[in-house]
């Protein structure tokens, strides 16, 4: 168990790793394509030709953009470090495996957080009221961290090809978008559809967003928040356990 001073020291080093990741990976092709272009075009293809209210549309847009952006950076970092032969140098520094993993997740978290401001600004510009801004802020922070942790799990396989992690990510991310109440609200899903929706963390994020924008949530907010927190803890634990096992095999 690390002491308080050691934990603080390791947290500082995680932030240094996150800053390095931001400098290097934000401008990489896969991040721009999967994190920015994809969610916008996917949403536009859903939106065009349908008459949706802004109240319904904006929580879905927020959910999709946050989900895609926060899961865009973290999957490519480990494969890129492996390919660039920078991982061994990093692992020999006085940083725990958890510190490296947390740094990578933080870089993805900050990316998601930053880009999520765009749909928020659009929401306000459209004159849609945000009834509970504090809860929405908490939802976005927790959601961004949860999705960034999920994104980092996509690079568990000790491959040196970012494309492999992106392929795994796509296989998981696209089905999740369709079952998480983004395009169709949970109320309209059949009971089996709702049962599937509950295994997706994006469902709980979008549901909180619907509570806060338009007041149309399906699940009580407290349960949504607890579910998001539980998913975050699960993903973080899996990240530390599985990456610690595969990191030495990357060098």
């Amino acid at each position: 168990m690390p002491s308080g001073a050691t934990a603080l020291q390791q947290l500082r080093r995680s932030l240094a790793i996150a800053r390095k990741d931001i400098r290097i990976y934000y401008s990489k092709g896969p991040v721009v394509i999967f994190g920015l272009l994809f969610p916008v075009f996917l949403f536009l293809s859903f939106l065009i030709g349908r008459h949706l209210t802004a109240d319904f549309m904006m929580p879905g847009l927020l959910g999709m953009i946050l989900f895609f952006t926060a899961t865009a950076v973290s999957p490519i970092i480990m494969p890129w470090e492996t390919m660039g032969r920078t991982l061994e140098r990093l692992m020999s520094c006085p940083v725990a495996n958890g510190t490296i993993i947390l740094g990578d997740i933080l870089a993805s978290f900050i990316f998601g957080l930053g880009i999520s401001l765009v749909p928020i600004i659009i929401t306000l510009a459209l004159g849609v009221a945000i009834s509970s801004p504090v809860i929405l802020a908490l939802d976005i922070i927790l959601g961004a961290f949860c999705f960034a942790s999920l994104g980092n799990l996509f690079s568990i396989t000790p491959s040196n090809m970012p494309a492999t992690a992106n392929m795994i990510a796509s296989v998981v991310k696209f089905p999740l978008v369709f079952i998480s109440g983004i395009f169709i609200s949970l109320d309209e899903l059949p009971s089996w559809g709702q049962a599937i929706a509950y295994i997706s963390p994006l469902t709980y994020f979008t549901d909180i967003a619907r509570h806060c924008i338009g007041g149309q949530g399906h699940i009580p907010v407290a349960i949504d928040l607890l579910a998001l927190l539980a998913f975050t803890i699960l993903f973080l634990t899996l990240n530390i356990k599985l990456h610690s096992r595969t990191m030495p095999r990357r060098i």
Partner: protein
Amino acid sequence: MENDVAIQVVNLTKHYDKLTAVDHISFAVKKGEIFGFLGPNGAGKTTTIRMLTGVMGLDEGSASILGYKAGSLKAKQIIGVLPEMANAYSDLSGWNNLMFVAELYGVPAGKAREKGAEFLQAIGLFSRKDDKVMAYSKGMKQRLILCMALISEPQVLFLDEPTSGLDVQSARLINDMLRSLNASGKTIFLTTHDMDEANQLCRRVAIINQGKIVAIDAPEKLRLATSGMHPVEVSFSDLASPEALAKLPGVNAVKTMGDKYRLYTAEPGELVASLVNYSFSNGLRIVSLNTLAPTLEDAFVALTEREVK
């Protein structure tokens, strides 16, 4: 543990599935020593250094650095590492790479800037510090990575093939820096293929082959202890038969080297007489005849080949 020991290794072992890459090796490196770790490709050098630097777990045995368990955060804090084939981040400048590593070691920003500038000046990279690493040559990258290993002013340095594949100037700069670091009291653990480099830099060397240590001693002692491996180099006015030379009394091995033959023996004086007789009886004239001192390379080859046999 004796308090003058910097690195203590006891029965260190690593398995990769059925292969034992490092097989119960034990040695100690004294504080302030440059210790060479030599061996052919695949002998277990890099696996050993990875276990000592905490990049890889060990399967059996133990290792400690200045009393701290190898791989622990405390041990990692006091070491500097230059891994084999490691890279700096090519999308960052040399300076940003250096400052990033300083942050990971918790070096205060002011001190990191001061030491960073000092090391880059010493190694001839200061004028290129703001260029992205992708624009650096191999030698420049390796010099930068050495600076990255030094930025925290570590007490023990682990260098895996630091001059491998470098131009003469870069290799010389790095070796000069290692000498000066050692003179200031740093302990250096160095793997290399370059016997000359090991001979010139190291106070002691260990030779590892097939995961086992086959010898540990001062380079000079290893060189002289290789009995039966005194080289005698001869060239004749015409081609001679290596098979016939190998049959001369006392010859242990023959190598053809261009127009010369290098014969290995325990009795160089007697071999010289035999060679003179051989030239007379075969109508050959001796063009040159030299008795050489055995090199560390000869010792290395003898020890590793003996193990293979």
